[in-house]
């Protein structure tokens, strides 16, 4: 199967969101299970060329406008301004951004230079997602990050200077050994920078990450649930006091600065992903490129599609997905969008895990803490 059959035939070229996966890093953070390899200049050049080929093979007419672009990774910003320039102009040619469109790029405080920032801004990137993670150097070290708190301040100021008016910070909560005081200081520092967006992720022990590879009984073990919840509540409090609104389980934004690319994914809208390990969604069809740079390069350089895994959803599963991921957002899901699931939602409502408000199903506060368990209830027939 190739990508030309992967979009619904006859469907109007919908403006899907565009995602690009940059598979390069300058090291591996202990919690990360995303696909990446160490940066190698020659490989990076070949990857860029292959990416352009992959975008060209996409069945949508060329060019086609898009509302959102998201460049993630990996660490996009370690590519250096030359390659970033090439990446961005390729994207712009193939998927020109609509007026008022959102173009995000993930950036690491440690590798962000004035030059890179200026290149990004000049190319049309208008949103920066900064992987701050913590404002405590010891914690950063423990997480395997290769930057310091000072780097975050520096990078943030540079970004503002380069003209970025929409900056998000990522923070990692629930790190074992990090007490409430240290965590509060990280939150305070984040707020003090006055970003537009903050994501707060509880540290997860992902299969495939170094955290998980460590021998069992190694010193890092997940915090007990009670402490985790305390950390997360603390974050919610600090951020809402500072004017942020929680709009998804782990995401907070100043009104109007919610990440549109991600919101569209959660609402179940289509997106196209490019690069090794990137996933795409078009109607009932899902596919993901194999997480392997070598085979990605070989396939595209040989004139074919990269190896992919396809998954075709039934309408019922698609509906369940929309419900499950929609409920992760605080706006919830419209009543009429959950046809057929009332039977499953009602018992959850009796347990006060979900509620109906303003014509929408939403999770209760307790429900938000139990989103996965609720999802399991909602799945199946």
């Amino acid at each position: 199967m190739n990508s030309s059959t992967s979009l619904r035939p006859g469907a109007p070229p919908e403006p899907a969101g565009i995602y690009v996966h940059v598979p390069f890093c300058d090291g591996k953070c202990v919690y990360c299970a995303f696909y990446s390899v160490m940066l190698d200049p020659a490989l990076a050049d070949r990857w860029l060329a292959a990416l352009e080929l992959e975008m060209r093979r996409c069945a949508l007419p060329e060019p086609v406008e898009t509302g959102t672009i998201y460049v993630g990774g990996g660490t996009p910003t370690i590519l250096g301004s030359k390659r970033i320039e090439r990446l961005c102009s390729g994207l712009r040619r193939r998927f020109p951004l609509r007026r008022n469109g959102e173009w995000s790029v993930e950036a690491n405080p440690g590798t962000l230079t004035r030059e890179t920032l200026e290149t990004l801004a000049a190319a049309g990137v208008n949103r920066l997602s900064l992987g701050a993670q913590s404002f405590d150097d010891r914690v950063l070290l423990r997480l395997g990050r290769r930057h310091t708190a000072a780097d975050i301040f520096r990078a943030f100021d540079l970004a503002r200077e380069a003209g970025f008016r929409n900056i998000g910070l990522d923070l990692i909560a629930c790190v074992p050994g990090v007490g409430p005081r240290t965590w509060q200081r990280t939150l305070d520092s984040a707020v003090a920078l006055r970003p537009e967006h903050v994501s707060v992720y509880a540290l997860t022990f992902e299969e495939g990450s170094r955290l998980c590879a460590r021998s069992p009984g190694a010193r890092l073990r997940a915090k007990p649930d009670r402490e985790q919840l305390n950390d997360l509540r603390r974050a919610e409090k600090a951020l809402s006091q500072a004017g942020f609104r929680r709009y998804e389980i782990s995401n907070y934004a100043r009104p109007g600065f919610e990440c549109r690319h991600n919101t569209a994914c959660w609402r179940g809208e289509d997106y196209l992903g490019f690069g090794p390990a990137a996933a795409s969604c078009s109607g009932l069809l899902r596919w993901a490129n194999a997480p392997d740079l070598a085979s990605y390069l070989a396939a595209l350089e040989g004139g074919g599609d990269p190896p992919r895994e396809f998954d075709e959803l039934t309408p019922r599963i698609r509906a369940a997905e929309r419900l499950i991921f929609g409920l992760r957002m605080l706006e919830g899901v419209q009543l009429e969008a959950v046809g057929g699931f009332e039977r499953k939602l009602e018992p959850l409502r009796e347990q006060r895990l979900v509620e109906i408000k303003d014509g929408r199903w939403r999770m209760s506060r307790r429900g938000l803490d139990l989103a996965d368990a609720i999802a399991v209830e909602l799945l199946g027939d």
Partner: protein
Amino acid sequence: MSADGATVFSMATELSRIRNYCIIAHIDHGKSTLADRMLQMTHSVEDRDFRDQLLDSMDLERERGITIKSHPVTMQYQALDGMVYEFNLIDTPGHVDFSYEVSRSMAACEGAVLLVDASQGVEAQTVANAYLAAENNLEIIPVINKIDLPVAKVEEVSHQIEEVLGIDMGQGALVSARTGAGIRELMERIVRQVPPPKTEPAPCPARALVFDSVYDAFRGVVVYVRVVDGHVRAGDRVRMLGTGTVAEIKEVGFFTPKFKPAQALGPGQVGYIVSTIKEPREVRIGDTISGASGPVPQQLPGFKNIHPMVFSGIYPVDTVDYEKLKASLGKLSLNDSAFSFTPESSVALGFGFRCGFLGLLHLEIIQERLRREYDVDIISTYPAVVYHVALEGGEIVNVDNPTHLPDQSRIEFIEEPMIKAFIICMNENIGDIMRLVMDRRGEVEKTDTLDVRRVMLTCRMPLNEILVDFNDYLKSVSHGYASMDYEHSGYAQSDLVKLDILLNGECVDAFSCLIHRSKAESRGRQMCAALKEVIPAHMFAVPIQAAIGKTVIARETIKALRKDVTAKCYGGDITRKRKLLERQKEGKKRMKQVGKVSVPQEAFISVLKSGS
């Protein structure tokens, strides 16, 4: 004379050259290993096909290193007198739960090789099996095995055999089944000491005793027989004298130990018959097979009906497997007449079967065989014995399932089955073992000195008390040196109560049990604690209670799940995340729903294992 060249056995070995014997012993004394040496000495098995404990052919037997079924095999032994003898050997299991297998095998034999481990000496099943052999008028050849071991105590053990069993070691042999030492001498003894089979003078109607049967995937119902008179051949029309079933024989043959077709089975021989009988339940172990026409001979003695003593409900994990489970139980019971089953249903587990067993190992083995050989996923309930419940007005009902206990207000009293247990142990362990027996509501009735170091305790105890883990405790307090045999010994009145387990306020019938009042509370606490370990946290708190009637005597609570949420979930994660959740959902589906509570299968097993 053979039709296909594959028939190596002549159809009628002269009676004087047939020797039928079984090998009997306490568990692990080396029966199957001795059978190996005999198979090799008689060249019954090619070197490349040989493996240790060859006759233990079931996976389960090989894995556990124990014999579960009796295994017959026919061998040609070239004796020192220059003649070739046909040896029909039956290797038997040693565990007390399978003594019924041993007694059936004995009906096909004239002799028994009684094996005693030189390092262990006479143990409980040694005594029991020796008596059984004597009752069956078998010629017993006492054999001391494992003489290669440095700790072998040949003299002491010889003494025990003579003193405890009253068997003359002058008729016996010393062997090592491992090294092969003494085996030739033993084979010669078998020729000399085991009497050849007897038969009615010809012409006489054919008679063969059905001593076992199996369901074979290719042949269907295979009946194991010992021919007493006359011949049976393919094409013969035969009648089962007990059930009256008439069938045509399709194949007869010997055990090599694989099925080996032959032209006929003659008097004194041991072999198998495949007939037009398709239905496992049309065969009764102990029945007599005879010609369908001609005079009807007298039925052979057959076997005492044995009654299962331990009952447990067996349910399919997935309700769609009900029919499959039923068919599998049918096939299993064909090969295991000591096992019974009847349909029953449970609120928690749905439709299943009440199954009867001879003991806990028997129960475990059947469960394992269902899982492996028949590939059905099952859940079983806590084992129970058969109680006699006396109701007001004098009526007595048998209750083998605690949930069927009549209303307490109608019960006058309850009686429980008792056993007489024979425990052989070292002098220094007497105190500990007496305490153990008393703790299990038993009493020691008699103490017999076996020799300077060992005694045999005769105890009366409730069967219920030895069901689950008594043997483990016995082994542990005696450092492995005590052994036990038991026989059933009537019923005795007892202060029994029904202990229920409630999950989130709902009684889980599969967990109910009858228990002595003095033990209810500790048992209730154990069960609650065990369940707390295996039942996953729910989105609400789940109280676990143990209750007698309406009185709660123990309680645990599984705290409500507080946090179960993936922090990061982006476009690329959605499919992966959904699949993960679907897997969790599948796992949940395999659990049993008790009201709103999902109970994993392990719960049913762990409650079983949580005994004192």
